[in-house]
Structures are given as structure tokens and as C-alpha cells.
């Protein structure tokens, strides 16, 4: 069965996370993605995790610093519906393939740019590696940790916001094109990706009061959800959810064997000392229990809980629900062999998505793609550039 984006061709010139992973979400819903790399390849390829983010596409190399390269690239762009690039504002223009130039020739082209900062922002000329945007956006400072000061976010959060903005913008523009016949320039940025995840905590509300702020305010030690992480035996951790959507058959205290406060007393209204005592008793009780047994018992009693594990463990065990969701898959990599990795996270019943192959080798499809757009066999080397 054809995917939802069957017949849509995307040229992916992006490096890093936002572009490649954003495009992956489109590639695995059926788009024909061609990764256009500089001679020698996208520099982020040195990172193994990139094998996931750049799978399901073909690869060509193109020397955009040569006339032959630019000319061939324009021919290729004429066959495409979408172009995605992640350079600093102005770089594509200097190469002669900016939106003003390419879009004028190709009015149906959807041209998506995802730099670190939007054009016109005072930081737009600065380097835009993910952690730098974590710093400049304020995200690192917003995250409390075990010491004062900013916390480095291991999960590259600005980029991981943009991975959704890239495909959303591209698809919205393609839908618009169906109606107007016209493509357009779609712009987002890592900074906007960072802001996406501030939605629950960053608002300025004129008539809010302290209580309104405190509910979601930053605190030391970190707030309400952090307090539901418990250490079990053998220095293993669980995270208990404050709700499961189901009626518990037993309470957490019953399972742990902790005597709860009398039924007519709300725990949150007890003297602070007593609250601390209750919390300590629970923490002690957790430490007595083997994690796997406890998780089974909690879940059997309708209390939602998860083991705090690494993603590698989630893939290896595998996590039973991740497995049921089809999210644990094996992809055969031409260099590293079979690799267990995440599957396709969007499930369309009418047009199911699928993984369309491993990360291609640098320029693996040079001959096939460049000859398709009319580059003579003898000229492919000049277009593709040196290795």
C-alpha cells in the first residue's frame, strides 16, 4: 500500500538533528527523500546515532561550490516538491540556491529552512549547535537539578522541538499548494523548537497570583513529578504516576505496607514534619522491594508506574508496550550489521508508514539520481565532487 506522501519528492540538504529527523517523519510516510550531501558527506555522519535519523532515503553528493554542481542541483530541484535546509540564514543564497532564486524559477516548490535562529534575530549570525540554543533560550536555566545553576539537557531539546516543526510546516505548505497551486518559503528555527516545550511553564499572565505561578514554578529540589521517583533495591529506580486513568485496586501504601494517615486527614494538610515522615517511610519501603516485582504488582493494581531505564534497555528487553506499538525494529546497516532501533511513531491505518531502508552510504545513488535528471555519465564526477 502506498504511503500518505507517495509521489512527494523531498531534497534534504540539512545536517544535524532538526532537519534529518524531521524529514524522517515524512520519509517513513512514503515521501521519496534524496539526501543531498557535500562532497565527502554530511559531517554529522561521524555520529552513529545519525544512522537512525538519516535512514529511509537515498544519498547523492553535490558540489554546490562549482557551477556544474549548482546547475545539476537546479535540475534536481525542478523534480522536487520540497527542499529542506538547515544552514545559517544567507548561506543558501550565497551558494546561488536560496529561496529567492530557486523559488522564482520553481513556483510550486516548498522550501523549508530550519536554522538555529530566525533571520533578523540578533543571534542569527552566531553558531547554532543545539546546546548553544539551550543556553540562549534559557532552557538550561529553567531546568532544576542537584546543584544551583543551569543543567545541560542531555536530550537536545531545541532540536527535538524543531523535528516536529519541519514536517508540520512542510505538510501545511503542501496542503496549501493543493489549493493555490503555489509553493512557498517555510521557516522555523531551533529557537522556536525550544519555545514549543515551554508551553506549560512560560506564560506571562497579568492577573495571575503567586499560587497560580507556584503550581508550575521551578523549585529546589525539583517539583511534583520529580518527587514521585523512588529508589528500589539494588539502586534501581521507578517513576510512579500520580494518576493512571483507572481505579486502583489497592493503594500504593497498601502495596508498600505503609500505614497511611487517618482517612479523615488530607496528607497535604498535615504538619510538614509528619508529611516528611510519611515520605521517608515510603522511600524506605521502596528500597526493600525488588523493582521488577514492584512494577508488576503496581500495574496489576492499576497504579501506573515505569522503571527508570536507559533507552538501550527499552530496546533490548524490549519494553512490552513499545514492542506492541511496533517501535522496536531491526534495520540492517551496511556497515554495522543488524541494529535494533526505534520504528515508525505515526500510525495511519489507510496509508501505513514503513522504514524504507538503512542510512545510505555517501553518494550511494549518485549515478542513478544524477542521470535521471539528465547529467551525462561523464559529468557525474564533476557534479558530485571529490570523495
Amino acid at each position: 500500500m502506498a504511503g500518505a506522501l507517495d509521489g512527494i519528492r523531498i531534497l534534504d540538504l540539512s545536517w544535524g538533528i532538526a532537519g534529518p529527523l524531521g524529514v524522517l517523519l515524512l520519509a517513513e510516510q512514503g515521501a521519496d527523500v534524496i539526501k543531498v550531501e557535500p562532497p565527502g558527506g554530511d559531517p554529522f555522519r561521524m555520529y552513529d546515532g545519525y544512522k537512525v535519523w538519516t535512514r529511509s532515503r537515498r544519498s547523492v553528493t553535490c558540489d554546490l561550490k562549482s557551477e556544474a554542481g549548482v546547475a545539476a542541483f537546479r535540475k534536481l530541484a525542478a523534480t522536487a516538491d520540497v527542499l529542506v535546509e538547515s544552514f545559517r540564514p544567507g548561506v543558501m543564497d550565497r551558494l546561488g540556491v536560496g529561496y529567492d532564486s530557486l523559488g522564482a524559477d520553481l513556483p510550486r516548490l516548498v522550501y523549508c529552512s530550519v536554522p538555529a535562529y530566525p533571520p533578523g534575530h540578533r543571534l542569527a549570525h552566531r553558531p547554532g549547535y543545539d546546546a548553544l540554543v539551550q543556553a540562549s533560550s534559557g532552557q538550561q536555566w529553567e531546568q532544576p537539578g542537584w546543584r544551583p545553576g543551569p543543567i545541560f539537557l542531555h536530550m537536545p531539546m531545541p532540536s527535538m522541538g524543531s523535528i516536529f516543526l519541519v514536517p508540520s510546516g512542510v505538510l501545511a505548505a503542501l496542503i496549501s499548494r493543493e489549493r493555490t497551486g503555489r509553493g512557498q518559503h517555510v521557516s522555523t528555527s531551533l529557537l522556536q523548537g525550544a519555545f514549543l516545550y515551554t508551553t506549560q511553564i512560560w506564560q506571562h499572565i497579568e492577573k495571575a497570583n503567586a499560587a497560580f505561578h507556584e503550581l508550575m514554578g521551578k523549585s529546589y529540589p525539583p517539583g511534583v513529578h520529580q518527587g514521585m521517583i523512588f529508589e528500589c533495591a539494588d539502586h534501581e529506580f521507578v517513576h510512579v504516576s500520580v494518576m493512571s486513568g483507572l481505579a486502583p485496586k489497592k493503594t500504593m501504601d497498601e502495596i508498600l505496607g505503609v500505614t497511611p494517615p487517618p482517612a479523615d486527614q488530607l496528607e497535604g494538610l498535615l504538619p510538614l514534619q509528619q508529611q516528611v515522615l510519611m515520605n521517608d517511610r515510603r522511600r524506605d519501603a521502596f528500597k526493600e522491594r525488588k523493582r521488577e516485582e514492584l512494577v508488576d504488582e503496581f500495574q496489576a493494581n492499576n497504579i501506573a508506574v515505569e522503571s527508570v531505564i536507559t533507552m538501550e534497555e527499552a530496546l533490548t528487553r524490549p519494553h512490552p508496550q513499545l514492542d506492541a506499538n511496533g517501535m522496536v525494529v531491526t534495520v540492517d546497516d551496511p556497515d554495522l550489521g543488524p541494529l535494533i532501533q526505534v520504528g515508525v511513531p505515526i500510525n495511519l491505518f489507510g496509508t501505513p508508514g514503513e522504514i524504507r531502508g538503512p542510512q545510505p552510504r555517501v553518494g550511494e545513488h549518485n549515478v542513478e539520481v544524477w542521470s535521471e535528471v539528465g547529467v551525462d555519465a561523464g559529468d557525474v564526477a564533476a557534479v558530485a565532487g571529490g570523495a
Partner: protein
Amino acid sequence: MTDQTNGTGPLAGLRLIDFGQYLAGPFGPMILADLGMDVIKVEPVTGDGMRMAGKPFFGCQRGKRDIALNAKTPAGHELALELVRRADAVHHNMTKGTAAKLGLDYEACKAAKPDIVYCNTYAYGLKGPLSHFGGLDPLYQAATGLEYEAGATQHGNDPLYYRFGMCDAANAMLSVVGVLAALLHHERTGEGQELWTSLLDGGAVFASDAMVKPDGTPVPRPRLDKATTGIDPGYRLYETQDGWVQVAAVKPDHWDALCTTLRVDPSIDRTTADAQLEMRFRTRTAVSWSYHLDDAGVPNEIVVDPKGGDLALFDADNDRLGLVADYEHPIMGAIRQFGSTIDFSETPFRPNRPPPRIGEDTKEILAWLGVGEARMTELKDEGVVTWPDESYAAAW
């Protein structure tokens, strides 16, 4: 980008009915409203269960019209289906089986509108051992390794919860991409379809650089240091005399320049360079180091204390470029929140509508459905619908 004209957005003319509550339901439709879609929030007459939480509610609702109705009543159910008949897409995050009980599952909606695009965002997933559970963001930060890595738990620290609640947002955003893919397919073929996403899978996307060989050997990926400052002496936070600087010395010449600027021997063993660099960074201010590193070509940024977000929400560049939205709420006054996340050269649009009160647009929407004034009052008296009136107290 700097064009201030507010057009109608790339999705103008498309309509979505949002039956969701809390976060992973409503956030996706909010983003679709930002893209110009006409989003109608169908809210219980008692209010979205998230309203009492304040910010997390407001953060997911701008740009929507709102009808408050009790879909469990026959009249309310019929009105809900009438809305579906006039829509292109339906979206919600009800737990498994709930929509069927309400008569608002895919089959029911498809009967009302044969080519409807129908999206359900789940906590765990559609089928499987935990699919009957609802659940909150922390479960998925735990299950997909995010908390383990965030806290550098491998060094003996406790796991650390990211306070951004981004598994909810990821589920919502996956659903946005899915709904848009399905709508594009609909534009091209006339076919509707059903789709789903989950919080769990959203978390997995965040950790999607993890890979394991069939024998269980993990393929290495960067890990955080014990002090949670970064993943390498060249890619981490350093404390200065008066604040912090993030350094991103990713290329070999960056590293040499970093060391030279800090007067540390560039040939130092990189795995043991932290202590010397830390000591040197403490001898000057953040601004001073940042200028010196800029001069030397070392990517760096001073870490901003956002003051609970206000610094970003009142930043002149963010404001001018539309990265901030502000609107007037009838009860809460002026509200600021992040603005456009995507800009469109030919179909510009800026979010400009505050989160609705319960049933803010009930009367307007009922009139559009052909319900007369007298019948509206009856429906309100019967508890089928509601709208804000004099008695509408401090309910947000």
C-alpha cells in the same frame, strides 16, 4: 518573516473538531489552529479537566473556538456529530474505549462524515499489555531513558525529570504531523482515514539515536558527566566568576582555540581537561569569556536566566519576529506566550485569539448549526450546553 500582515494561514478553510482534554489532546489542535485551521474545542459543560491547573491549560488552548456540551446526552451527542459532519478532521486523547462509549469513535464519525480524518492520541498505545492505562508524561520520560540520562544516573545520581513535560508535547506534535499527512492524502485522493500516536512513542523519538546490536551490546552514544554540565570538556557548561557559559568546541580547531584562549595547553589529554578549564573559567566574567571565545572562533553562548520565561516573552527580537503571542483574556487580562513556531511566506498567520472560557462560542456555533435562540436556552436549561453568563465566576 518580518512581514506583520496577518493573513489566514496555510490551513485556512480546513476545520478540526477537538474533543480532547488535558495536554496531549489539546496541544496538537492548538498548533493546527496556529497554522490557520478552524479548530472547534468541544468541552464538557463542567470544563476541561486541566482548567484548574492554570498555565498547562492556557498553554494548549489559544486560537480555538469553544462549544461546551454534554456529549453523553442524546441532544448533545447529535450536536457533536453535526459538528463532525461539517469538519475535515477529528482529534482527541480519550483513553481506549471511551470514544466508543460516547458514540464518537471512528466508526461513528465516519458514518457522519465518510471522508473524515480521525486521530486518537493515547498514553501507551492502541493495543498491547499497558494500552488500557492512561498516564502522565513522567512515565514516558522514565520508560524511554530520558530521566536516566538527564540525571546522569550511571554516575550514582538520581534520575532527573525534565520539567518541560515534552512527552505530552511530542505525542501532540506527532499527531499534528499525522493529521497533516492524512489531510494531504485526502486533498490528493478524497480518502479519509484513522490514525493514532502515543506519549510512549513520543518519548522514544527523543531517544531515537539509541541503537543496540542483536547480542545486546549498545552502540555508544554521548552521556552526561556526573555534574550534569555536558558530554565532553569541549561541549559543556562552565561556571565563570558571575554566571555560566556553554561551549561547543565541536571541530578540532575549536578545541585548540578554546584551550589557547583559556591558556591551557591544547595538547592536554582531553579526557582530563575539565579541571584545568574549570579553574580558568572561574577567573573572569561570563561576558568577558564570551567575547574572548568569539574572537577566537569558539562557538559559545552565555547561559540566560529566563526569569520564569519573562525574559523571552518580553525580548524585543522575539516580539518583533512574532515569536511571542499576546492577547487579552476576559478574566486573566493580558497573556503572553510563545508565538509562531513556523512562518509561511505566502500564507502568513500569527496566533491572536486567547484561550476560550468554557463555552465561549457556544451560541455562535449553535446558531451556525441552525439552532434557534429559544432552543439554545432550552438546551442550556437541560444541561446539554452552556456558555459564560453573569454567573460565570472565576472559572477559567
